[in-house]
Structures are given as structure tokens and as C-alpha cells.
């Protein structure tokens, strides 16, 4: 290639001009570009309804997962950014807001309450708004449970039972923001030690740690797994669309908003505002009640139009015992992710084997207590660091640091290696002890 990289764009522009001439001119209507991680049936419903109400506007959906959406907004030049960002994970909006990529829309619906539990629905600074509510829970395939003669679970604690061994599925918090929220909810609800013990036992009962959060509800809905830990709308939408599944909110759950925000530096902020306002209006909120969408509106009045039995977090139908503390979650965000990966994701085979050995020993002993079994449990289900260590800023910094920081990445690899090899040794020892327990 004789052309230098600097010149090539001009060459390209010249060669594209000819093709471009043949393109039809786009209509001059206002286009609102929405970046979202939400599924097609939800975006299709909003597109249809919104365009019917505002015939001069055109809604353009860019479907991206949350992390890809943030990267996309960041890489667009000011003036050609998308108008609206719409996604589940609250931390994504914190990232956008602190990077100055959001602007105030000033279209809050006054009928939306300030808080759900103790969690503010709208960003206190007004940069983003809660547009729907989401809780975490347990979804199961009724046919699967019936075929395997398994009881229906109600609480997280049920999932540690031996009969559920290899019937569960969960995703990893490092691969899925919603799973991270679930794990953090359990850690906050049960406390660090008990929470980890429970998470490890549940994970040990899992048939798979799926690569993506969607793999869990998907696998449960089509019957590949019996029970999954999922965000509520996956369970409710599948159920309401006729899949043989059920969903329940355990008492240790928290309700957090899924958000919508106006992106700073977009082409038509006014039109963007119009869409956000619509999404927060009663009309827009009602779309959430659609069978295939099944999300919880933020507008209490909308629940009056909901079908009977629709969960209403404002009427105490969901007992969310956990008041989700997002700053606590943020302070150990990367540590929890890395810990889960080292203890579970990368060592799942060993953890499952240890869990199986412990279940077998328990059955063999018939309820008698055994010091070896207790020791096996302790080894298998204790996190390598305690809550205080996890909250250590220096530790979090190691994980948060720029990848180019060679020092930090060495330290990080060292910490991860330490956790990982310790977990592996502990699982092996636990198997040995459980097999020898009498």
C-alpha cells in the first residue's frame, strides 16, 4: 500500500463518493437513537407505540450489551452521540455520569416515588431516571422439577440442599452485571461469611456456570437446567409467554431500578427528552406490563392496570429484606468479581466434586455429626478473605488499576493465583475429608 495511513481516508472518501451518490436521501424527520441492552420485544413495543404517538420522530435502536454501549458512547464524537442510554445495571450509569457523558433531562415524572425501599429510584443528582424496577429471584422449569421429583424452591437457602445437586445454573458476576447484583444482594443480606458460604454451596450444586447471564433463563426455559438464579423479568416474561416456568422472589432480595438517561453531546437532545418523558409516562409505563416484557413499572398507578397477581413492589407484594447499599457494592466491585471467578468459575469442576462428596457423606452419616465433615464444609465453603480485607482500598485498587500498569497487573495475578490455588487445595482436601468422614 503506497498510501500512508494519514492519506488513506481521502482515497477512501473519493472512492466512496461515487457509491454514495447513488444513495437515496434520508428523510428529514428527527431521529432518536437509543442505546439499550434490552431485548427485541421490548424495544419493538416502544418503537411502535412511540412512533405512533409522535409521527415526526423516528426511534432508532442500537442493541448492545451494557459494557459495549458505554464503550460506544465514549468513542463517538460530540454531536453524533446517541440520544438516550437505557439499560439495567445502575453502575453503568454511574460510570457514564462520572465520565460527563450524561446531561440532565429534567423530565422526571413527579408521580414516581423518590425511593423503593431505601434505594432512590432517580439519581439524586438528576442525571438518570429509574424507568423500571427489577428484583432478583429463582426461576424454575416446572416440568423439569416434576420429572426429577424435586420440590419447588422458595429461598436461596433451599438451593444448597443435596437434592438440587447438578440441577442449578448461575452466571458469573464477572460476565454479567445482573448476576453481580444478585451475588452482592446475597452478600449484603446474609453477611459476608454466611453469604459466601451460601453462594459457594449453591454454585457447587450448579450444573453449569454459564458464560452469559442470558444462558441461565434460556437454559431453564427450554428445560436444559431445572433452576436458575435470574433477574425477575426473565422469569416473569417466560412464564407469561406460556413457558412451563415459575419465578419467585426469595425474602433476601433487593429491588433496584433499571435506568434511562439523556446522553450529553447528542444530535437532537430535545427529541431524546421527548422519548424519556414518554418512557416515564403512564402510557410508556403500561408497555412494561406486556406479557413478553413483564417488567415492574416505577409508576405506582400503572399497577392498577396490571393483570391480577402481577408483583407490585409498592404494595408489599415483594418482601425485599435487603436494602441494597450501592456504595458498599461499588467499594468491593472488582474484588467480588475476581473472588467469584477464582473460587467458582475457574474451579467449578473441583467445587462441584467437593459438594458432591459432602452431600454423599451427609447421606451416609444419616444426620450424625462428624468433625471431618464439618472440617470439609469449612474448607470448601469459606472465602479466603474476610469482609474487612475485601473492603481494603488497596486491594480494590489492584483490580481497578489500568491494564497498562505492569506493577498492578503483576500484583493482581499474584493475588488471583493465591486465591485460586488455595481454593483448589481446599476442595481437594474437603473431598478427602468428606470421603473419610465417619
Amino acid at each position, binding site marked *: *500500500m503506497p*498510501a500512508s*495511513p494519514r492519506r*488513506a*481516508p481521502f*482515497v*477512501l*472518501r473519493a*472512492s466512496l*463518493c461515487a457509491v*454514495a451518490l447513488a*444513495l437515496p*436521501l*434520508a428523510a428529514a424527520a428527527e431521529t432518536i437513537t437509543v442505546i439499550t441492552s434490552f*431485548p*427485541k*420485544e421490548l*424495544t*419493538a413495543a416502544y418503537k411502535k407505540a412511540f412512533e405512533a404517538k409522535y409521527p415526526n420522530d423516528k426511534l*432508532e*435502536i*442500537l*442493541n448492545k*450489551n451494557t*459494557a*459495549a454501549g*458505554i*464503550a*460506544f458512547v465514549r*468513542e463517538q*464524537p460530540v454531536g*453524533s452521540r446517541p440520544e438516550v442510554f437505557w439499560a439495567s445495571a445502575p453502575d453503568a450509569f454511574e460510570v457514564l455520569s462520572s465520565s460527563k457523558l450524561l446531561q440532565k433531562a429534567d423530565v422526571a415524572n413527579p408521580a414516581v416515588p423518590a425511593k423503593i425501599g431505601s434505594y432512590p429510584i432517580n439519581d439524586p443528582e438528576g442525571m438518570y431516571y429509574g424507568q423500571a424496577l427489577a428484583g432478583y429471584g429463582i426461576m424454575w*422449569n416446572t*416440568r*423439569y422439577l416434576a420429572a426429577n421429583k424435586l420440590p419447588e424452591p422458595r429461598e436461596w437457602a433451599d438451593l444448597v440442599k443435596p437434592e438440587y445437586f447438578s440441577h442449578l445454573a448461575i452466571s458469573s458476576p464477572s*460476565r454479567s452485571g445482573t448476576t453481580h447484583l444478585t451475588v452482592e444482594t446475597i452478600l449484603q443480606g446474609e453477611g459476608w461469611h454466611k453469604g459466601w458460604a451460601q453462594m459457594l454451596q449453591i454454585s457447587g450444586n450448579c*450444573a*453449569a456456570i*454459564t*458464560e*452469559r447471564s*442470558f444462558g441461565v*433463563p434460556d*437454559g431453564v*426455559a*427450554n*428445560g*436444559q437446567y431445572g433452576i436458575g438464579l435470574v433477574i425477575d423479568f*426473565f422469569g416473569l*416474561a*417466560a412464564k*407469561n*409467554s*406460556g*413457558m*412451563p*416456568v415459575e419465578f419467585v422472589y426469595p425474602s433476601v432480595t433487593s429491588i433496584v431500578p433499571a435506568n434511562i438517561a439523556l446522553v450529553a453531546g447528542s444530535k437532537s437532545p430535545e427529541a431524546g427528552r421527548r422519548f424519556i418523558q414518554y418512557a416515564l409516562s403512564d402510557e410508556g409505563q403500561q408497555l412494561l406490563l406486556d*406479557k*413478553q416484557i413483564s417488567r415492574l413499572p416505577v409508576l405506582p398507578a400503572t399497577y392498577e392496570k396490571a393483570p391480577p397477581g402481577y408483583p407490585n413492589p409498592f404494595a408489599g407484594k415483594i418482601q425485599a429484606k435487603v436494602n441494597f447499599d450501592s456504595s458498599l457494592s461499588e467499594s468491593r466491585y472488582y474484588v467480588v468479581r475476581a473472588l467469584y471467578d477464582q473460587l467458582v468459575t475457574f474451579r467449578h469442576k473441583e467445587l462441584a466434586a467437593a459438594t458432591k462428596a459432602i452431600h454423599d457423606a451427609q447421606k451416609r452419616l444419616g444426620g450424625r455429626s462428624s468433625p471431618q465433615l464439618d472440617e470439609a464444609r469449612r474448607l470448601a465453603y469459606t472465602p479466603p478473605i474476610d469482609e474487612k480485607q475485601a473492603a481494603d482500598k488497596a486491594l480494590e485498587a489492584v483490580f481497578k488499576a489500568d*491494564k497498562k500498569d505492569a506493577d498492578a497487573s503483576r500484583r493482581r495475578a499474584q493475588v488471583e493465583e493465591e486465591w485460586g490455588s488455595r481454593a483448589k487445595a481446599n476442595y481437594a482436601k474437603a473431598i478427602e475429608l468428606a470421603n473419610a468422614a465417619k
Partner: protein
Amino acid sequence: MTTALAAARTPGRSGAWLVALPVALFIGVLLLWPVATVLHAALADGRGGLTLVHLRAFFSLSIMREAFVNSLVVALGAVALASAIAVPLAYLTARFAFRGAALVQTLGVLPLIMPPFVGAVAMQLLFGRNGSVNLLLNDAFGIRIPFMEGLYGVIFVEGLHYFPFILLNLVASMRNIDGAMEEAAQNLGSHGFRLFRRVVFPLALPGFVAGASLVFVKVFDDLGTPLVLNVTNMLAPQAYLRITSVGLEDPVGYVIAMIMVVFSILALWVSARITQGRDFATLSRGGAATRRRPLAGWRAFAAYAWVLLVLALVLSPHLGILLMSVSRVWSFSVLPEGYTLAHYAVVLTDSAGMIGNTLLYCSLAALIDVVLGVAIAWLLLRTALPGRRWLDWGASAALAIPGIVLAIGYLRAFRGVELPFGWGAFTASWLAIMLAYAVRRLPYAVRACVAALEQVHASLEEAAQSLGANRWRTVRRIVVPLMAGGILAGFVTSFITAAVELSATILLVTRESQAPLSYGIYLYNQSIATRGPAAALGVIAVAIVALGTFLSHRLLERRSAAMSSAET
């Protein structure tokens, strides 16, 4: 001799240059430069020098090491599975008088009309942990076979889809073996498996390697299948995730892309080496047509059983998506319960645009391909332009470039390039998608056009020119009409393979309104409520592609019939 002929008739250099220049520009700007920027990004140290730091960083990440090993395991596993299916089938069709041979031939075209990612979801319902097959097995024998668990699933789906590449190549090379060789072996007392292992297979090795390396490359590059099966710890999905979520500045994404290119080239090179490096020549080609042995008794039974089993497996994804597209609920049951056409209604009302986009992009891309294909064929066979071989090689290089790498290259190389008239960034427009299709499918069109022009005798053009036609008129009135069949074949092949391309598409689609069918299939698959619409789109895609394949077969047949009748 051809060169002498061509040299004798070399048209004015300027004419050849005029044709060669745009072709070279196209290949250079849209293929070589983007790939070069990817390789550069993987090796640049940010200060203008080269470094291996990023490569080391890549191998220091455990997830990347895991992805690397997994990709190799899956690609080799798929080759092994594909061979296990294809080798017996090839031997059966090439060496035995056997009526199932016609069936085996049909198997050869099936993967062309449906890429693995379309059928992958259906395979989950049929062969998954609690899919139809395992439910039946569990009922009858209390066992489950983990066809679809993690990497096995990818291997299973890909092997099943790509085995025809090995089958077709192997059958072709077995047909070329001199029958005398086998007869000699038989006279010396070699039979059955020993005959196959010691004589037939070694002689047919070039065909096998050619097919196997193609399978390896295809599987190694495939992004759609692992994504649809929720497997992300492989190289292609990791490259996709890194580039989309960490951003375009992340060197690790480029390192993955570089590794993928290197392995693709390596596989194709090994195949070329093995085919050329050893002397496989047999005395008389295809010789006195190897005697086909009759099959009878239990052998015939076993052969039929094998062919039918493979046929059932190969048809299962097709059948699966068809069932999914009309099923209401299909969960934990052998067959769906309740049938409906609603999914087609959803797709046709919400996503008719995607079907239109596919038709638009693919026809434009295929058009560009055949125009370039004719130009390259003409330069190659009718001019003595220095370096004209390079154009051919350049165009064929696209075969070794994974779609995802090309797309990453576009995103990086053309970042900030704005289209005129306020149409926004080039990489955010559908032009990028369409041009990526054109580049990726160019090798097929070039091969088809070169083959077509080789069959047109130069004397016909000379006759036209001596009757006073100028060069342009000769090309327009004589050459192109005579090449029509080949051009059409090139067009259709480019079109249908582009219609189901996902790996470049998924990175280049920025908005739903410009998304083609293949992206729609991926998008609808992310729905929890129902995957019916995804399956319905899949069925529509298969129908479009099958129709294209059928039409091109018909046209080619008619043409060859016309030609043979003209000769007699």
C-alpha cells in the same frame, strides 16, 4: 502457450492499467489496509516501533490462554468429528456400487444453505441436556449423552455442518486414484480396512487435507455458533467482546485478531504444502475407472444405516428450526406442543426491513464481486500486465481473513471517516457492511469468472476484433455473454454465502434499521419469551439461499446442456 498468445494480443498497456488500477485500489483499501492496521495495532508499541508486549500480555491473561486452547480444541475436534462422518461416506460412494450414493451427494450441499449458528439453538432443543434425544434415551435406558455441553456443543454443531468439505474433496481425490493401484494391492492380498488404510487413504490424502484445513479455518473463525450457544471462552467471541466492550484501543483484541489470521494462513499453507510437497501422482488419472465393488448382505445394510444416520443428523438442525418457527412452547419435551404461524407474522411486520437489507447488501456485494471477478479474469488471461497474478492472490487472500478480523480492521482503519452529504461515519453506515461482504466473497467470484473465461477461446475475440469491433465492444458483446454462466455462478455463490454471514455483520451493524437477516436471527435469539421469531427468520434465510442455489444449478445445467447440444 497462453502467455504467448496473450502477449501477442496484448492490448494497449493503458487499457489494462485502467482496469487494474481500480481493482488494486479496491483490494488494497478494503482488504489489505484494514488487515494491516489490525496487525500493526497488535504489534505497535505506541511510539512507532514494534513490540511483543501485547502478545505477552495476551498470554498472561488466563482467560485468553483458555480461549486460545479452547479454540484449537474445538477446531481440531470439529475436524475429527467431520472426518469420522465423511471418510466412511466418501469411501462408500467412491468405491462401491451403492444406490445411497445419490443421497450422499445431496448431503454435500446442505451446509451451504444453512450456517451452523442458525441451527445451533434448535440443536440445543434436540440434543441438549434435556433435548428430545436425551429425553428419549433417558426414558429408555436411563442415560444422557452430553452432546451439547459447552465446547462439545460447538464441536458437534460445527462438525455436523462442515463435514461435506471433507467429503467432497475426498471423493474427488479418490476418483482420481488409479484403479490399478488398488487392484495390485488386492492381488497381493490386501482387503477391507487394510486396503483402505494402506493404499486408498494415503493416495487420497491431498483431498482429505484440503477439506480438513477448510473445516479447521471455518470453525476457528466462527463467531456466531459459540455466541448463540452461550460459549464465550473462545478466541472469536473474546475478540468480539474485547473490541465492543473494552473499546477500539484495547490491544488484546488485536492480538486475538492477529492470532486468528496467523492460524488461518497456517492451516491453508499446510494444506497447500501437503498437497504439493509429496508426489501423489498416479500413472493414469482416474485410470481405467476403478471398478466399483458391489455391496450386499450385512455390508449393504451397514452402509445404508450409516448413510441414513448421517442424513438424519444433518437434517436435524433444519428440521429443528422449522419446528421451532411454528411451535408455541417447546420446553422439556420431545416435540413442541401447540403450533402457530404467529412468529412469521412478527418477523414480517417488525423485521421485513431486515430481509430487504439482506437482499440489497448481498446483491450489491455480489455485483461488485462479479465485476471485479471479470476484470481480474480478463487481466489474468488476456493481458501480460506485470504483477497481474498479484491481483488474483490479493483477492484470494480474503479466504484467509476471518470476518471478525476484517470488521475490526474496518472499525480501526476507517475510524473518523465521514461520508459526504451528512450521511455520517462510514463505519456506522451500511456501506461498510456491504463492502465487507463484497471483499469476503470476492475469491468465489474470481474463481468462477476465471474458470469461465478459460473456457472462452481467444480466437472468438480475435474474430470479433478483426471484424472491426473495438475492445470494449468485444468484451460487451462476445466475452461477457460467453462467460455468462460462470458470472452467474459467481454471483449466486457470493450472494448466498453473504446472506448468512454473521461474524463481520455483528461488529459492523450499529443500528437496527440497517441490520440484515443474519443479525436479526442473532438478535431474536436473545429473547426469553420466545425464540420462534429467530427460527422463523432462519427459515426465511434458508429459503432464500436454497432458492438461489437451486436457480444457479438449474441455469448451469441448462447452459451445459445447451453447450453440449451445440457441440454435437
